[in-house]
């Protein structure tokens, strides 16, 4: 198995939320019909019926998430997510897990900064029990002490394991330097110390105050009728409280821009995380920024950064950028890994390409090619029920509208060179470009000492 995973020509770039929905498709509108289903109890889901395989994927998200963790209990949302399927109602952890496993029910929860999410995928023959387990997990999780201790132990081990990787450390340095006082500066997982402070009461409190119907967004794809889905929604989510009591994520002001933070580590290859403030998902210029980013660093084989850093000079295997559309502090972000001897050159090239985009914008041909890819590749995202369900939740999370799939081509297609020039001037400010570098890069001096990071 390890052999099979070993080598791929490029990373399939793990794109942030923005990328999921931000591609469009051509000549294809209507192939996927999104329907709105509202249950008798008032739970709304966006739904795509697909009878190819006798199963369904249900995905959901509660607005809020890890950015609302108390500062001394960072990691609370993530720990809660790890525990919801570890026993609920009359079923202890073992009994609950045994049912999931023996019925091949895939039930998962996760926390991001801005949402607490979950997914349930089941064969139709086990659907009733899957829905019952989902309801129990959301409304009657047990949080038995040995299970809390066990999942805490797993999370802490995971943090320690990741912290041997320069890429993880660079991400941490970046967060800590840019957001020293905001939850965005702390890892979603929390740390060994902050997790120790979490009590069973905190976990129960999280469920009660965060998982309300008013924050719930559901997307469903698969082999089920609308009537059946209505009943499913009430059975799964009907017992949740009408309103969540949790607060809202505060806006975050970046604390330090334009610097290079350097954390020295004896590793053969330096890793840099870089970025500057970007645009909100709701910004009218978002699509121009999205197309611009595709040309600058988003296109996996064709971007300026890819061409200059990898293709021409062989300075990196992985180089990419993306739009990180967080509500509290949207950013344009990127990452590169280069041998210590070449990292200073990679950093120079990234700076010069950002400057070039800021000063000159893009050519007609570059714009045309980007649109062809972004519109042409959109249908590729609809090849499994979980991918479809996740796009539906994404559309709701960013208020894109139920007709978004039909409007997508036009939103991308109408971006002009002038739009990109304007948006590049507006936010792609080279003076704000900030780097967090981990390694021993020759000839690259940090302008600032890297902040202390924990975990």
């Amino acid at each position: 198995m390890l052999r099979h995973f070993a080598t791929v020509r490029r990373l399939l770039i793990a794109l942030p939320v923005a990328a999921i929905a931000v591609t469009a498709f051509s000549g294809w509108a209507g192939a996927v019909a999104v329907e709105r289903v509202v249950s008798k109890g008032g739970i709304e889901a966006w739904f795509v019926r697909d009878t190819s395989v006798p199963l369904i994927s249900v995905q959901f998200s509660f607005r809020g998430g890890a950015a609302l963790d108390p500062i001394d209990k960072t990691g609370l949302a993530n720990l809660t997510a790890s525990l919801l399927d570890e026993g609920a109602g009359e079923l202890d952890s073992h009994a609950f897990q045994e049912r999931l496993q023996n019925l091949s029910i895939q039930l998962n929860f996760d926390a991001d900064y801005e949402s607490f999410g979950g997914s349930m995928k089941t064969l139709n023959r086990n659907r009733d029990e899957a829905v019952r387990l989902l309801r129990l997990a959301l409304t009657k999780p047990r949080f038995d002490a040995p299970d809390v201790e066990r999942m805490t132990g797993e999370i802490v081990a995971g943090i320690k394991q990741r912290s041997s990787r320069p890429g993880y450390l660079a991400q941490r340095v970046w967060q800590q330097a840019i957001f020293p006082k905001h939850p965005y500066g702390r890892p979603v997982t929390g740390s060994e110390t902050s997790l120790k402070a979490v009590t069973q009461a905190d976990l129960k409190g999280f469920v009660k105050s965060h998982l309300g119907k008013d924050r719930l967004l559901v997307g469903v794809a698969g082999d089920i009728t609308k009537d059946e889905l209505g009943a499913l929604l009430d059975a799964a989510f009907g017992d949740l409280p009408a309103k969540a009591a949790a607060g809202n994520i505060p806006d975050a002001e970046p604390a330090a821009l334009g610097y290079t933070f350097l954390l020295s580590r004896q590793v053969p290859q330096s890793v840099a995380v870089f970025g500057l403030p970007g645009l909100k998902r709701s910004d009218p210029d978002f699509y121009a920024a999205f197309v611009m980013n595709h040309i600058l660093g988003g296109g996996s084989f064709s971007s300026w950064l890819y061409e200059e850093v990898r293709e021409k000079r062989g300075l990196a295997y992985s180089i990419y950028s993306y739009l990180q559309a967080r509500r509290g502090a949207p950013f344009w972000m990127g990452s590169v890994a280069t041998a210590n001897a070449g990292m200073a050159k990679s950093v120079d090239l990234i700076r010069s390409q950002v400057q070039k985009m800021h000063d000159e914008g893009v050519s007609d041909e570059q714009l045309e090619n980007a649109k062809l890819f972004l519109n042409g590749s959109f249908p590729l995202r609809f090849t499994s029920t979980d991918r479809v369900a996740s796009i539906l939740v994404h559309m709701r999370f960013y208020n894109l509208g139920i007709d978004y799939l039909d409007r997508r081509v036009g939103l991308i297609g109408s971006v002009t060179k002038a739009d990109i020039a304007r948006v590049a001037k507006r936010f792609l400010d080279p003076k704000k470009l900030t780097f967090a570098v981990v390694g021993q890069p020759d000839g690259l001096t940090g302008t600032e000492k890297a902040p202390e990071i924990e975990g």
Partner: protein
Amino acid sequence: MGVSIRCAALAASLCLLAVTAPARAAVFSPESFTLENGLQVIVIPNHRTPVVNHTIYYRVGAMDEPPAKSGLAHFLEHLMFKGTESLKPGEFSAIVARNGGQENAFTSQDYTGYFQTVAVDRLAKMMEIEADRMTGLVLTSEAIEPERGVVLEERRSRTDSNPSAKLREQANAALFMNHPYRIPIIGWEHEIRALTREDMMAFYRTWYAPNNAVLVLSGDITAATARPLVEKYYGKIPARTLPSRPVWKEPPQTADRRITLKHREVRQETWSRRMLAPSYATGPAEDTYALQVLAEILGGGSTSRLYRSLAVEHKTAARIGAWYDPDSRGPGTFGFYGSPRAGYKVDEIEALVEAEVAKLLKEGVTEAEVAQAIQRLRDAAVFARDSIDAPSRILGSALATGRTIEDVETWPDRVGRVTVEAVNKAARSLLVGKGAVTAILLPEETS
């Protein structure tokens, strides 16, 4: 679910890799045909969206490299994007992108693959350019040298900057004493640096041929519509005479080996143990199915024996699981892995895993355990149908490693016939009296 999810995910991916069929036989119901030049074509219809995955597998991988040329198969894979007699360097990818396609390539010990996923009306163009680079590759030093840098950076990212991966590379070299699987796919750095244009071209001309390839089409297409296109673009490529391949076998492994990596960046200890096991290619066949059931019972997720014992009852492990990979041209592998919770040591993980193995060998598995494991494995085959990529990967890798469509399609039936006795017999044969490699990762200051 933190770690237990990862265990479950690992097990699931193994099922998917190893498996293929749905509950009543016929998992993917593929169609197939073979061109006169020997190109084998598999079509897996799935009409959910007007999209198709077009993948070509060459039956050549890292294990086929000449001596002292490690990394050659993978380096060549990178260079296959660098132009042909009719396409300039980079033009291949530019065409795929302009057609809204996603593409990539991969190299394993056993095979090398190239794929594009596109709207089905763009398939002909993909075939045209993929067929073109089966024979038309042009390599210049201007293309090779920057890409050598890329490959070395890839090695640094994947292996040299990752203590777990460094240890895995060493453990693998210890596990295979004779088989070329001992050499990492990406290659040893000093050999990557020494590979020449002539090495690349010789390897390419030897192995890239229609009669050494499997073409897999998965998505909104049927054999009837695919066949004229395949004939048009791939049919004109002549077959090559393929060299005979060495028959590699491992000698008996009689000694246990322990390797330890102490590394300054490590903060979490880990433990693993791996051993040679039957593969589909080496057999015995009945053991390969029984061992999939065994791996599920021992280490498949949070209700497995190992997780129950080490993570739940003894509270020793933060991560614990088992894997089995029978899907290869050479020997298969079976293994265990674990990480201790804070306050525990790898020695305690090892002792408890050994205790569970001893118990299994003494008492055997139960009827209920076998029945449940079989059900989960068979269900995984149904889940595998919910995408166009997984069926392509499962059938493609099976055919590229010497299996047949029927092997894949009958997988659920064969797994379904596994008995308690078969599992116990396969477990004894695997776990008693043979050498294994134990690999331990420790922080530098620990001694």
